[in-house]
């Protein structure tokens, strides 16, 4: 068997929609999905669920968690619990916006670079090189500071620093797909370049890009809260997790000010990472736990028979 593609890439393609149901069945993905769902519900009902106005400075200051206020109050008498719930409405949609924009932008640029090739490819790839030469937080920080501190500018900075990774991945996928036999077969049958891209290439890019994006949601939340922590994102008095932690720095003995927003970020990011990792696992036959049946040890023959009961005799 001298197949030109490795079994890995061969199996990975086209498995996306069968992979999603498989991924859901693993406990890790279930836990992730439940936590993520819980936070999404919180974000939706926060205005009604919050016991106090998250911005109102009307409670006694710096009271520890207790009967009066579930998670205590901050230095100006705001309710930490209400601010925590409201914070979910701020970070998650913006992180999603950031990831979706970066994915679309990166996919667009990556597929143009890979498909057109030549100097267009060269130029675009040097551009990604430039951006990727900077550590993401440092570049995002410079951009956010230049544009002026605001949450929206932090999102813009986040998009600028994160699209190149999608462009790189999509480009290399497109490049390898372009030489795949089925794409060439399409061209020999008279496909236009556009049709080739739309029907042969992009559908097969979708899976890996989706995995990348799902894993990137957590990173996006970390970046946005990090920039807010530095004072380059959400501005006071907004109820945002990163800036809540920043505010807690000057009242270090009031532990509840810092601990809870941090746990909020941790659980949300973890939930999306669990989901993303399970999805990657399901799409990648090698790193998966090899759920039953075909074992990784015998690539030569048996797995084909076990995995794929339709044999030659079946016709």
């Amino acid at each position, binding site marked *: *068997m*001298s*197949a*030109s*593609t490795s079994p890995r890439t*061969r199996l990975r*393609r*086209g*498995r996306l929609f069968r992979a999603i149901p498989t991924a859901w069945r693993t406990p890790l993905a279930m836990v992730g999905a439940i936590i993520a769902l819980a936070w999404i519900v919180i974000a939706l009902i926060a205005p009604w669920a919050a016991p106090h106005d998250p911005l109102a400075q009307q409670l006694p200051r710096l009271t520890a968690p207790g009967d009066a206020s579930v998670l205590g109050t901050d230095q100006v008498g705001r309710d930490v619990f209400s601010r925590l719930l409201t914070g979910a409405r701020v970070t998650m949609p913006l992180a999603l916006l950031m990831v979706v924009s970066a994915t679309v932008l990166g996919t667009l640029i990556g597929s143009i670079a890979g*498909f*057109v*090739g030549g100097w267009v490819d060269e130029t675009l790839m040097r551009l990604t090189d430039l951006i990727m030469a900077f550590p993401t937080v440092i570049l995002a920080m410079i951009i956010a500071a230049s544009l002026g501190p605001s949450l929206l500018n932090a999102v813009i900075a986040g998009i600028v620093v994160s699209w190149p990774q999608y462009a790189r991945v999509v480009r290399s996928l497109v490049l390898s797909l372009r030489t*795949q*036999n*089925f*794409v*060439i*077969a*399409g*061209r*020999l*049958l*008279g*496909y*236009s*370049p556009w049709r080739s891209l739309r*029907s*042969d290439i992009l*559908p*097969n890019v979708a899976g890996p890009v989706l995995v990348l994006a799902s894993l990137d949601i957590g990173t996006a939340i970390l970046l946005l809260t990090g920039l807010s922590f530095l004072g380059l994102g959400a501005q006071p008095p907004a109820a945002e997790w990163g800036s809540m932690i920043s505010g807690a720095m000057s009242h270090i003995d009031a532990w509840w000010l810092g601990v809870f927003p941090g746990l909020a970020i941790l659980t949300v990011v973890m939930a999306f990472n669990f989901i993303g990792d399970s999805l990657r696992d399901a799409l990648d036959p090698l790193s998966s736990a090899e759920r039953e049946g075909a074992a990784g040890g015998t690539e030569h023959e048996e797995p*084909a028979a076990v995995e*794929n009961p*339709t*044999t*030659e005799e*079946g*016709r």
Partner: protein
Amino acid sequence: MSTVLEATDLAVEYRGHRTVRAVDGVSLTISAGEVLALVGESGCGKSSTARAVIGMEKPHSGDIRFRGAPVPPLGLRRRKAELTAMQMVFQDPNSSLNPRKRVGDQIADGVTAARSRGLSSDAPRQWLGAVGLDPDMVTRYPHQFSGGQRQRIAIARALAAQPDLLVADEPISALDASSQSEVASMMRRLVLQAGAGMLFISHDLSVVRIMADRVAVMYRGRIVESGPTAMVWADPVHPYTKALLGAIPHPDGKGVLPAAPAAEAPAEWHEELPGALDRG
């Protein structure tokens, strides 16, 4: 018989830190209703020749004509309708089909290509039947088939375009031994029924023997011997052809070890024997 393909003095080079000339002055012609087999061992340039003929590889020099008109390399642009009369079947059945598209739709693309040249073609269901699969499988996706079945589908898609020339690059080497000669015979039958010609690339001389009208043996980028299959098989002239034929083990139960060449690449294999070319 009309000539469908004429390649003259074809050369293909690969640039790296060392430029490698994979095909070094190959000329061949294929007529309608004829199967030409190009045989040789790995790295001899037979696949590069096939890829250059169809336009996947830009030749370094030489001339390729399909029905008298030059074949431009497959670029970014859409291929002209006339050139969809050249089709190809690839070696690896797993990458030959789009995993995200129903096989019926992929065969239908072949039918569309035939229509674009004003020809009629059967429906995808009938094509599946023609290659020995259940017509009801048109709605399935490639992953629901075995490697051998996928190769049959790829053949159906190429033939649905009603080609005048089918280029087949090791189309059977990834299949189970027991179905190799059956698929090869089926390809010959269907191509000849359609009045087309076929360039059949293979490293397996025993399969070539039963299905090729003519055979060309390649060694290190050059054709060293060519002629009617039966003649080359029965009476090889070039030392390399002799070695190649002598090395084939036969399943006859006699326990005879095939002849092994004395060295890895004896000098005599490089000889040019004009008498060995275009025999018959």
